[in-house]
């Protein structure tokens, strides 16, 4: 496949079957390989769409400063696009994210402002919103509330999945900004009303939920629960276990959030088998495992890896 530039190659990712982990010939799992995007994660789609929309809206000129709260992947995607298009990027990132993410951001020329580990991404959002008020000339694309994020998946991920897997019965993805689930979910629902849309939400260690009070909780502005069929909470133990299974049984080297998503996908597969139903379950491989090597995810016993992830924003 030939493209005029790297940015033009975002999307069009492969959908690969999981012959070993699929429980039955009539209950099949399919991995949407978003790690094949230019910076190695699903976030390239949203980043490109948000910047393109901001350009259309006249918000950006050469040299403009972009500001974004991110746990890493969106920042890396934005940094790649911003560099190509001539913008500066400042990322607000929780300090408990992996070293690789910081290195990648600085490689692409982005500046990183650290937010406190306690409170996780909620805290990064709060800090970024404060900075945006202090610097009205900076442009915060704000992935949690930017419709272009969900729209990217409505226009690309959804149609790609339906074209490759017309028999799709389930779509499973991670719940962060909710953009992937909202956009892909709406598209698939419009074309296959009976499709099930399932969210896998990472359940972190204690530190990340260390809010001062419950009113500090956060629900992304993009989130519309009516798009979802159901929503699972997946802890580090199951996420690590499934990430390793995916590597050992199918050869797919993915990051831990993908393990969490696979865990929910396998639960849906089990349900279909119990009910004797046919199922084609597509799930998102968010990113490859490369950025998580330093976390200890792939070393030692499951318990050691789980302990290593405690306190980190692993998804």
């Amino acid at each position: 496949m030939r493209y005029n530039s790297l940015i033009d190659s975002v999307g069009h990712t492969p959908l690969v079957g999981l012959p070993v982990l699929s429980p039955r010939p009539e209950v099949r799992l399919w991995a949407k390989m978003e790690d094949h995007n230019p910076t190695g994660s699903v976030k390239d789609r949203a980043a490109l769409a948000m910047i393109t929309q901001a350009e259309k809206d006249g918000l950006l000129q050469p040299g403009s400063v972009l500001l974004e709260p991110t746990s890493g992947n969106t920042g890396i995607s934005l940094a790649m696009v911003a560099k190509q298009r001539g913008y500066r990027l400042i990322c607000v990132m929780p300090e408990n994210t992996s070293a690789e993410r910081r290195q990648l951001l600085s490689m692409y020329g982005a500046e990183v402002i650290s937010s406190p580990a306690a409170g996780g991404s909620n805290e990064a959002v709060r800090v970024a919103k404060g900075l945006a008020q202090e610097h009205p000339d900076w442009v915060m694309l704000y992935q949690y509330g930017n419709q272009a994020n969900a729209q990217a998946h409505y226009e690309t991920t959804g149609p790609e999945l339906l074209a490759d897997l017309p028999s799709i019965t389930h779509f499973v993805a991670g719940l962060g900004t909710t953009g992937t689930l909202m956009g892909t979910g709406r598209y698939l629902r419009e074309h296959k009303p009976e499709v099930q849309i399932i969210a896998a939400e990472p359940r972190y260690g204690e530190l990340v939920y260390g809010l001062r009070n419950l009113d500090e909780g956060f629900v992304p502005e993009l989130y519309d629960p009516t798009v979802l069929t159901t929503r699972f909470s997946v802890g580090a133990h199951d996420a690590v276990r499934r990430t390793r299974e995916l590597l050992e049984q199918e050869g797919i080297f993915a990051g831990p959030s993908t393990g969490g998503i696979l865990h929910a996908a396998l639960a849906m597969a089990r349900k279909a088998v119990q009910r004797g139903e046919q199922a084609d379950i597509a799930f998102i491989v968010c990113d490859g495992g490369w950025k998580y090597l330093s976390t200890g995810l792939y070393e030692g016993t499951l318990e050691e890896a789980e302990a290593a992830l405690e306190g980190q924003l692993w998804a």
Partner: protein
Amino acid sequence: MSVDVRIPTILRPFTSGEKVVTAQGATLDAVIKDLDANYPGIGERLVDDSGLRRFVNVYVNDEDVRFLESLATPVQDGDTVTILPAVAGGCH
């Protein structure tokens, strides 16, 4: 019905620091009322007149009760109820 309830850090002052407590009831609503009887005040942090509070997520065996029957969700002996504050999730 006896279930395990995982208590988030922010609500542990109610449970003398206990991370997991047991509670009785056939529905989530009954479980929360039983929790409140043993740990007075915890109930109103979880529910208000309109149901579950906006920034409180509750899961029965890891499934979000808002996609089950919310407070009317049935629970069975040995189920795990997890209470968490809503936070920005993963992969972003």
